[in-house]
């Protein structure tokens, strides 16, 4: 009886970027170009200074379920961009995990 279920708010977290956006990314770009294409990464971790994580995590609340938006859990949408020590992109991982 969804009418009486507790109202939960939708929980969007991180960067909902799409594959079309991410495809423009090439190895060899510098950090500013990455920021211009994809914006700031969701997580830039202290222990992994040369890696930017564009992760998107979504938990549908009452409204989300009503509109039938699927949950995005445990890093199912997660793009990892690796840089060398002077900020040039060396590796891009997880492109296929992004939506079209």
């Amino acid at each position: 009886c969804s009418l009486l279920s507790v109202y939960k708010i939708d929980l969007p977290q991180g960067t909902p970027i799409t594959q079309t956006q991410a495809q423009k990314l090439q190895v060899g770009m510098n950090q500013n170009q990455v920021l211009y294409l994809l914006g700031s990464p969701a997580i830039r971790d202290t222990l992994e200074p040369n890696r930017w994580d564009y992760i998107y995590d979504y938990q549908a609340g009452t409204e989300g379920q009503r509109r039938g938006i699927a949950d995005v859990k445990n890093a199912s949408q997660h793009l990892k961009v690796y840089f060398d020590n002077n900020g040039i992109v060396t590796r891009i991982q997880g492109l296929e995990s992004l939506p079209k």
Partner: protein
Amino acid sequence: AEFVVTDIGFNGLQRLTPDSLYPVLPITIGDTVNDANLAASIKALYATENFADIQSRIEGGKLRFDVVERPTIAEVNFDGNKLIPKEGLEQGLNNAGLDVGNVLKQATLQGVANELQQQYISQGYYNSNIEVDQTLLDGNRVKLDVRFIEGKPAKVVDINIIGNKHFSDKEIKEVFAVKESSWTRLLSKSDRYAKEKLAASLENLKALYLNDGYVRFSVDNAVLNISEDKSSVFIEVSLSEGEQYQFGEINFLGKPTFETSKLKELVTFGAKEKYSQAKLDATTAALKSRYGNEGYYLAQIRPVPRINDETKVVDIDYYIDPARPIYVRRINFTGNLKTQDEVLRREMRQLEGSLASSDKIQLSRTRLMRTGFFKNVNVDVKPVPNQPDQVDVNYTVEEQPSGSSTIAAGYSQSGGVTFQLDLTQNNFMGTGDRVKASLSRSETRDSYSLGYTDPYFTENGVSQGISAYYRETKYDDRNVSNYVTDAYGATLNYSYPVDETKRVSAGLNVDNTTVRGGSRLGVSSVQQIIDDGGTFEKFNNDQDEFSGRTGFKNEYQSYNLLFGWDYSTLDRPVFPNKGMSHTVDATIGLGDASYQKLVYRGNIYQPIYKDWVARGYTKLGYGNNLPFYENFYAGGYGSVRGYEASTLGPKSQSYNDAINDDVRFKDEEVGGNALVSFGTELILPMPFKGDWADQVRPVLFAEGGQVFDTTDKENRTFIDPATGDDTGVPLLTQDNKLRFSAGLGVTWYTPIGPISLSYAVPIGDKEGDETEKVQFQIGNTF
């Protein structure tokens, strides 16, 4: 003349010290001093604004400054200031640095006087004058007496509109913020001329035409004349209407990230429709919030109308630049001196580390206001330095007292120590929890109740409330005249939101109530006690004064299920101005007293004109085989003002009167199982400003209501439990006529809780009603 300075000294110093002035001077001991840096040092000393006069002397290598310190302000008095309150004036002086203790700077004082004069002129007080007298006191201090000769403000006596055909003079003047003088303007003072009012009126005039298709409308000239004695103002506005235009097609240029069909849905006007600026603005706002909700918080959306004068059609080109998705990095709160950070953060609908959404940011602000902990909440979104796609959202709150507490204690010979403590705090120690405690002990009655509610038992706002109560009246059974209830019990209640505005609640109450009735108890209640298996006792040991009395007693051990549904869009819990609230409470009694009780309360607030608000309210109740102590009552504050508390509705003869038919004292009100009450209020704006003014709410009200008994008690007769025979007395009588009243009320929200006073004139009151014109109440408003 150049020389090496060996010593620098000051004389004439009073409050200042040489130490504090040395760093100011551009020269120090040992420098070579010439005219240039000497002048520079005098200039630097003047810059400290502490000196009225500075002279420099050179005595052999020693540099001497003879200074006269400016007086400090000892006292500032205002006289005759009606337009600007005292606090406002003091604030103005403080900002200019002219408050008590500071140095008196003549230039700033003159500046402030002119500035105040300007304020009077802009409010239409053309004949006003401000005089400042300064009296010197000992210790180089000065007393300022500021006298305001305000005179009367200029009144607008004539508004002349030239060139209007489509709208009549009357329709135009209706829209004007400034009105022609007439006695009706006494209260609203809208005939007083003020510069902003004329500007606002011209804006309204422009909007009037633009919303009716006149794209080419323009105000050619607005001439302002004033009479020779500066008391009457004449306004003449000449305008050129132009033609009426229609909307053409709409196209979206620039980078509209969404499909045009989706954007078209948001457009509030169709082609061939009459052009309206209001509709265009509404569409722009809708587009802005659409982009704002999808993360494009800083999107630029500009409608550019292309006007075709031949075909009288206006095509709209929307230039859309969504910029880039914006994320919220941090949400900061300032101003919460008492309230915890978590109490504010949990109301947020916008999360950190996710796309910014203008609706969510605004909704979060509304939710903060709805907690009732804050007088006002401002939100401002600031971009993060060198992070173009990140913003910080800063909420500044201003806290207000959120509850009431009264403590009273006493000692009486017979009753021993008596005390009373009432505490209702909605933001207990800033934790956001609600505490309701009322402990009172007196000679005749002990009553302890304690309630604690955590509104965020879970992060989604499921609240958990626990309360317990114990009540005991210390009467001897024989001494009870009408009836008393001793009760103890506890309630556990959970409530949770079902969406942004609706909440559902469920709870269990375990209750043990002992009802003790006396000879003045109404027969319908006596009958019910006996029917429920209560005991009847006749005290006839004749040595004390109670002999001959009767007593009824019954104990009800009941488990009540409580259900609630609550819808509220009120803008704030205390003195709302907008929105509505509906609550439905159902109680299902099980155990000794099995009954069902349903209560609906409705409130609608609608601002009608400037800051006047109309309110409609109603309370309906119905109970099915209610125990008499759970009956509804009507009359008095919170129901129908103008009648004594709980004196409306069915009446029933007291037991004594029923059994000995010679004496007939006043019948007892016993309430009923069905309640109807409704009313409307016109909430008046406070005529003067000031901090405490928004704690007071004056209202004009008209309300009515009645309590009925829909059971068959009316045509049943009372059977005397002592003798078992039918006394033929009807259990109760009622006249089923609604009672009304109208009047004036005022509520003042003080730290010890809301105090309400009302003067009501009963309307349609019947003979035998106990009316009470003036009523007073401390405690929650209804």
